[in-house]
């Protein structure tokens, strides 16, 4: 008997125990939406702001004024004395008391595909083990089985260079993200003007010409087939099919799905986030977190959605980065203040990162290339003691001078910030247990609240 089959049997029991599905059609009926808002024992959520392509640390959170590597941008003061960041992040600067920039990320992978996998799963692609992406890993721990909304929502993930880095890996499709605003195809994606539509869930509404009554009749016919199949051919496959269908129907019919209806928001607030896909996606993230979704990721792939890899600034770095920051700054700052206004910032960890940084040295096309040796990420909000900087790079930015932070250290810190035990194990597809973070990982204690 393999270890894996034993686990499956346990999963199976859990699936049956949650009773998501049964012969009776009454189970398909919508469950009322959870009460909106914060409660004292609410679980923590994570919002990952993913900067596809690798943002330059020297033009954002680790400025090098006075050095030729510093580039064209000026540093500005922030709400925290002594911490300076880029002039094109003025609104984030005013909220620095909630943020902890880590200036000493130190990784070893400079290839987009592999580095994306590394930063999003905590591991390099390695033989047959399919590591799960952050969102799957965390939402499995933080989420609830029978919630109306999926526990992991990904907005505009640009997955083409490293699809495995965006998937649930060995945790299985049950922990796959619900994807909205899929940027991988032209046609399903919108240009800037069409962001409301692009942030809708695909296939969420009934097919044309099928009303609710007919949909019920169809589900009832399906229910008969399913109870027949499950009684004669019991097993994980049929149970998982039933629970996925039940969850999908629950979502289709729930009140909570209104989270995706952004038109209900105050127009001024929508303006503040920025009337572009990333800005509105950050607003969507707040609405989802508010309704208890434990993990939302929002990718910033480009300033208009025709661009997919805009942070990869091998040429014309400063023009591109400036326009990216002009989208990033209002969205991120409004997200923090909006969450704070609703009492949700303390329970929501916000993570800003990409797959690596960019070379401090500016190349001949006024660009910056891939640079994993010494770069920056930022943690803010829930569980983080903001207003302090972690680590230090040399004056030319070429190496970490103080407190190098590895990917595993970062993962362990994120676990702690949302109250997870990083030693928790999942059984991988090769049968070996894999922890949320490796035992050798050192969480960054000084920024953990």
């Amino acid at each position: 008997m393999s270890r894996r089959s034993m686990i499956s049997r346990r999963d199976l029991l859990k699936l049956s125990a949650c009773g998501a599905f049964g012969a009776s059609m009454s189970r398909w009926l919508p469950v009322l939406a959870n009460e909106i808002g914060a409660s004292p024992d609410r679980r923590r959520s994570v919002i990952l702001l993913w900067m596809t392509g690798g943002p330059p640390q020297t033009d954002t959170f680790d400025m090098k004024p006075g050095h030729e590597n510093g580039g064209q941008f000026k540093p500005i003061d922030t709400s925290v004395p002594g911490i300076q960041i880029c002039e094109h992040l003025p609104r984030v600067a005013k909220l620095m008391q909630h943020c902890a920039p880590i200036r000493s990320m130190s990784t070893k992978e400079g290839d987009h595909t592999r580095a994306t996998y590394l930063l999003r799963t905590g591991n390099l692609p390695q033989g047959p083990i399919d590591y799960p992406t952050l969102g799957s890993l965390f939402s499995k721990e933080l989420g609830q089985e029978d919630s109306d909304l999926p526990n992991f929502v990904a907005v505009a993930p640009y997955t083409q260079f490293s699809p495995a880095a965006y998937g649930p890996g060995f945790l299985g499709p049950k922990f796959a993200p619900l994807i909205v605003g899929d940027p991988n195809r032209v046609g399903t994606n919108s240009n800037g003007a069409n962001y409301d539509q692009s942030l809708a869930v695909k296939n969420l509404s009934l097919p044309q010409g099928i009303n609710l009554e007919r949909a019920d009749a169809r589900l009832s016919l399906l229910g008969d087939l399913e109870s027949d199949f499950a009684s004669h051919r019991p097993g994980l496959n049929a149970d998982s099919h039933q629970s996925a269908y039940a969850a999908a129907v629950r979502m289709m019919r729930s009140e909570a799905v209104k989270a995706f209806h952004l038109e209900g928001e105050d127009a001024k607030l929508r303006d503040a986030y920025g009337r572009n896909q990333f800005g509105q996606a950050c607003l969507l993230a707040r609405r989802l977190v508010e309704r208890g979704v434990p993990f939302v990721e929002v990718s910033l792939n480009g300033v208009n959605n025709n661009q997919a890899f805009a942070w990869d600034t091998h040429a014309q770095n400063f023009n591109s980065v400036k326009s990216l920051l002009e989208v990033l700054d209002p969205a991120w700052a409004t997200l923090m203040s909006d969450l704070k206004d609703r009492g949700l910032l303390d329970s929501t960890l916000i993570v800003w990162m990409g797959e690596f940084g960019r070379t401090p040295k500016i190349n001949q096309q006024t660009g910056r290339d891939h640079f994993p040796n010494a770069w920056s990420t930022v943690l803010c909000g829930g569980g983080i003691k903001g207003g302090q900087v972690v680590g230090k790079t040399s004056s030319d930015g070429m190496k970490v001078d103080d407190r190098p932070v590895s990917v595993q250290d970062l993962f362990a810190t994120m676990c702690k910030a949302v109250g997870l035990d990083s030693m928790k194990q999942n059984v991988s597809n090769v049968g070996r247990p894999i922890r949320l973070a490796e035992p050798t990982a050192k969480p960054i204690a000084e920024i953990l609240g």
Partner: protein
Amino acid sequence: MTHPARAQCRVMNHLLHARCHGFRLALAAVAHVLVFAVAPLFSDDVQELADKIDRRIEARWQKDGITPASIADSAEFLRRVSLHVAGSIPTVSDARQFLRNESYNHRRQLVDELLESPHYIVNFSNFWTRVMMPESATDVQALAQRPGFQAWLRQHLGNNTRYDAIVYELLTTPLAGDRGMNSIMQNPGSVSPIAFFTTKQIKPENLAAATSRMFMGIRIECAQCHNHPYDSWKQEQFWGYAAFFAGIERTNQNDGGLGQVKEVFDRRELTIPDHETVVQATYLDGTQPQWRSKVSSRRTLADWMTSKQNPYFAKSAVNRLWGHFFGVGIVEPIDDFGGSNKPSHPELLNELAADFAAHDFDLKYLIRGIAASKTYQRSSRKTHVSQTEPQQFARMAVQGLTGEQLFDSIAAAVGHLESFQQFQPFQFNQPGPRTEFLELFAPDNNSPTERQTSILQALALMNGQFTASATSLEQSSTLTAVAEFPSMSSGDRVEAIYLAALTRRPRPEELERLTKYVDSGGPSKNQKQALSDIFWALLNSSEFLFNH
């Protein structure tokens, strides 16, 4: 062609294609002489293999007090074996034809026909691509290289090239020079297994990890960095094995690209990275190769790997195919024969491996034997509490479909003819329904018996465009034909869509209930739309979405 004639032809084929590489071609020359002498001995080797399987499996049932499920009826067998061998459910007309005829050897004939169809080639080129180029499921750069690799596989599967010869060619394909990387980079679609190397980044350590796992079921990659915590593999063994690939050199690398490739054919040692230690190329069983002059290191490895004396080679292939047909291997996970993963039926595994090797690694022979066994032909319907342990094979396991199988099955059920279209790897931006399906239903690496359904998959199947047109009276050939055909009763119509989607006739109680539903017209008070509702439910059902 009569059956004995076909069998004889098969034997001839079998011998003619015994080996396709190098010096072994000589065998073909003597094939004619051998055919008539050998044929009687091989006359029913398929049944012999099937009997061997049943003997071992049934002996265990007896010992462990297990009551097996009954033998599957024709409909259940037809659907199952069509999916396993040809990658799709049968069409209504194929189903009707098969279910009419209950003659002796009927099931054997069906398997022979499926194996000779182009669907077998496509289905198994997908299968072996998943095995050899798993990267192409998730990595866009690997995906772009898939067409040439699959063309190479299809050529061999079409010729029924023996498994050892396929692996031999894969391991020894030239990387440098005119026939190597350069020509592939210039013509990405050209027929070649070279993508196997490029997707492993042409690194000795990646090639070592991949080849030992894929072709021998040995996972040594953890020993790359440290001595293995669970198994007995040592770091030096890993690098000793990797040293067979040490002659491959990449030059002019830039920014993650692979650069140019040179190969020093007789290099036989490498230095463990970040260590001082130099290791000599050594087989995984610890023996030192007998080096011959002008024979490259890779060829020296391939000779050992694909030899009948290598116990891992045949066992690993046999277990993989067994897993394909039963959903669960005799060893699990399917490609990990290490430490604690003991075979459930060690004698059977040995016998299958020996038989496979004795038949010169003939894949079709192995498939015929498995499919002819009563064990494979057991129903998936559970009839006794003792049928729970998957590795007892007391009933057929319910298995997930791959994206390709699912798409092609929906196409077959709906009556689309273009299900055979070639996959277009470069059309990211204009996905056909097939590409979208393959992405959404890309199988996770979980065992097919533990396939999970995601919410997005459920939403796509319930509400997506593809299902909508499949169940639309305007667009679905099957549904339109069934709904419009004048002289059919409601019961006949229900039966026809059951055959189309589930490859079986409805049971009496289903027929009665659904006939009433059609006659009433359902909520829309329209009989045709009521049929469309039933078809929708069938296409969304577990019975349709799984192989069982």
